[in-house]
């Protein structure tokens, strides 16, 4: 064999190695994304979050494992009962998202997730945190929609936020509900060709639609 052939074999080997690595990343991510979507207890979420943290440690240039780690932590914050605990989960979620934004500054899903974290922060202590964190949440949603006006999650989360605010001030929820409808249209239109892309949020928007219909009846 000539030197060229050896080199070719080695190069092919290297490429297939990269490919195999990529495939492994994809497979492990898909199975854990499935787990995090199906999780319902803190333990299940923790186990998925741990897996994403491991993947993030091995794949230092990928934003997706950090994103799903943040998502799992936000879910745990929602499940936790004690305010201090909720904050711990939200801190971890924010740390993961901040890291991810540094890796993929143009990815609209990340500021959407950041806004989600701030929004949950408000619910821990609305009186004290409302003004600061609702503002931060709105700014993050704005950023996400600026990066991708078609992002259904950013739109749906912002609709949640506006609905809550409008409800609080007894002002019209119409614009929030309209925003939610447009989010639902975008959910329907979004084709999940990338199995790693976030796909959650439609049921949340459907839940808001029900609330909107009830408000409209009154």
């Amino acid at each position, binding site marked *: *064999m000539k030197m060229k052939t*050896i080199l070719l*074999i080695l190069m092919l080997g290297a490429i297939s190695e990269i490919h195999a690595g990529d495939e*492994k990343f994809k497979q*492990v991510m898909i199975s854990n994304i499935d787990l995090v979507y199906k999780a319902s207890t*803190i*333990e299940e979420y*923790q*186990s998925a979050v*741990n*897996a994403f*943290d*491991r*993947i993030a*440690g*091995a794949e230092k240039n990928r934003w997706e494992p950090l994103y799903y780690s943040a998502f799992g932590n936000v879910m745990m914050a929602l499940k936790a009962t*004690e*305010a*201090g605990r909720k*904050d*711990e*989960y939200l801190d*971890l979620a924010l740390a993961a998202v901040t890291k991810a934004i540094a890796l993929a500054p143009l990815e609209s899903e990340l500021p959407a997730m950041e806004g989600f974290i701030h929004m949950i922060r408000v619910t821990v*202590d609305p*009186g*004290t*945190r*409302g*003004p*600061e964190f*609702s*503002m*931060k949440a*709105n*700014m993050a949603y704005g950023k996400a929609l600026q990066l991708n006006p078609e992002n259904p999650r950013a739109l749906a989360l912002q609709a949640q*936020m*506006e609905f809550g*605010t409008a409800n*609080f*001030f*007894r*002002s019209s929820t119409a614009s929030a509900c309209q925003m939610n409808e447009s989010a639902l249209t975008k959910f329907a239109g979004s084709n999940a060709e990338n199995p790693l892309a976030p796909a959650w949020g439609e049921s949340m928007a459907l839940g808001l639609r029900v609330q909107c219909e009830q408000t409209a009846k009154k």
Partner: protein
Amino acid sequence: MKKILLPVLIFLVISGYAQTRINGTVRDAKGEGLPGVNVLIRDSYDGTSTSIDGSFSFSTDEKDARILVATSVGYKPFERPVTLEGQELRIDIVLREEVNQLDAVVISAGSYTAGEERRRTVLKPLDIATTAGATADIAGALNTLPGTQKVGETGRLFVRGGDGNEARTFVDGMLVLSPYGPSAPNTPSRGRFLPFMFKGTSFSTGGYSAEYGQALSSALVLNSKDKAELNQTDIGILSVGADVAHTQVWGKGSASGKIQYTNLRPYMDFIRQRVDWINPPAALEGTAAFRQEIGNGKLKAFASLSETDFSLYNHSILDPALKQSLDLANRYRYGNLSYKTELAGGWGLRGGLSYSYNRNDIRQGNSPANETEKGTHAKVVVDRTLFSQFDVHAGMEVIDRDYNASRYNDTINQVQYKGFRETIAGSFAESEIQVNNRLVTRLGARYEYNSLLHQSSLDPRASIAFRPGRRGQFSFAYGIFRQSAPNAYLSLHHELLQERAEHFILNYQIITDQQTFRVEAYLKQYKGLVKFMNSDPYQIGSAGTGYAQGFELFWRDNKTLKNVDYWISYSYLDTRRDYLNYPVAAVPTFASAHNLSAVYKHFITALKTQVGLTYSYASPRTYYNPNLSRDQFLTDKTPSYQDLSVNISYLPRNWLILYVSCTNVLSRNNIFGYEYSALPDGNGQYPARAVRQPADHFLFLGVFITMSKNKSVNQLPNL
């Protein structure tokens, strides 16, 4: 070539199939299994979460020397090198608790922290604004906390038997001189700083850090807000004036400014006052704040200017028809520059410079007088955290005060001057050792050199906090504190010693998410207080002494009743002083044995309205009656003080707030003391006049409008 490739292929195949299995358990220091711990081989996919009993088991394709890691929230990460060569490994792991801010015991003796809302705090910044009766005055809100005594005719903070000037105010660590605005005799003054400027407030009723000097009884530490996030314009229309504020934000900085004009004339024409005003107070105030992030440092600048004028008639007690005018013009400037940054190697650096200027021009009848105090404070502090549990901070500062007063004495037709220039050079060092989540100690000392006395001093400070169970914690604090004698005396007698107080404080508190219980006992001993020798006001020295002791209770609950937040504080105080012209040790006129406050806030969602009620009680205070003999000195007592205040905030739109507050809705005739005529009447008796509230009620109306692109912003945090 085949010869070369074959071993390579064999190697690849072998490496692909030689898995290593790792089993073990993760426990905490007490031996309890920890579930949900992430156990993994660093930089690999391989790992697992521990099960409910803390056990784990996983296989890895990784080979040779690797690092096994175990992580869990609240614990320090565990790391161990392992060699993976296909043979099963058993690894039992013990995770050590991480000392973190959220769970760790904190020193709570003597201090109430509002703000830093991530930590469990007794008060939140918003509370200062929404407490009824406080009318958005910081001191007013803090007066509902234990440790304070209500002295309604001053509006100031009086802490644990301490005089009003024993409580010092610091903004971003820098001293503020004259933190209260001017007011007519026996009418309450307001703090110069509005609560909306601050993100956090730490109100210490004793035993505070060595960083704060020249404060005998209390340190009120206000931390200003960081860089603003949003452009906005706020407009306030008040029953006593109007204000407008604007905030502008850019990349790494923000600037905001506020101008406020208040004029009490229309209000005082409408609601009858007991003060015979010629010109009720009118004030023009401006504040400006600038924030800039420089690298990983934060620069803050703050300036406040105010001009206040008023004039009134003082009536003679002996013959109320006789009156004399009193004219006051106050000019106040305060500027503060601070910088905070992180240096290499874990060092933190902060420093600041503040300048206070306060001038009063007073004309009583035809006798002019004036008083000027200028103060400069410069400070540099470095801190460092070593091994995450051992924290040191040390600093140096200079406090320079220049005080001058002059008065035209019409009996001798001469202008009399007095004054002093005092420079205090201080340095301090303190270490905080977080032994574990249950035990923390803080030890420090403060050194000062005083230029007037040519004397130096070293004062120790120590505190410790211990949490035996899951929630409740004990703390103890000790310290020696000093402060220069009041300006009125020091300006005549530069040799007056520093007044000194020794504090002992024992505290127990339980804070859960929405409930707080605190009980605190203290003893404070005073030495070196100003004392007239042989009852002669021209012969004064530093031989005065005193003590204050007592206990305090605090309960706050926003859990039991939905949308309701309330707190109750009670303070018991036993104090006596032998100082100034006192012939014997007596209870000073500003002290009341029992103080009670109950604050109730109810948010009515359906009405978008918050209703607040504050009830305050202070037991009878002593007053000086010159008609009594010497051994009956300060034995007369006023009736008790009681007040019920109400406030209502209505939020019809998220950019609009309507606010109404009224004090003393039960119209109680509160008497703070009695003033006596300097001259006796025909029967040789000195006639008296009660010191009362300037009006039965203080009624305040305000409309606050916020203009911003962001719909969810309003001035609620500013109120």
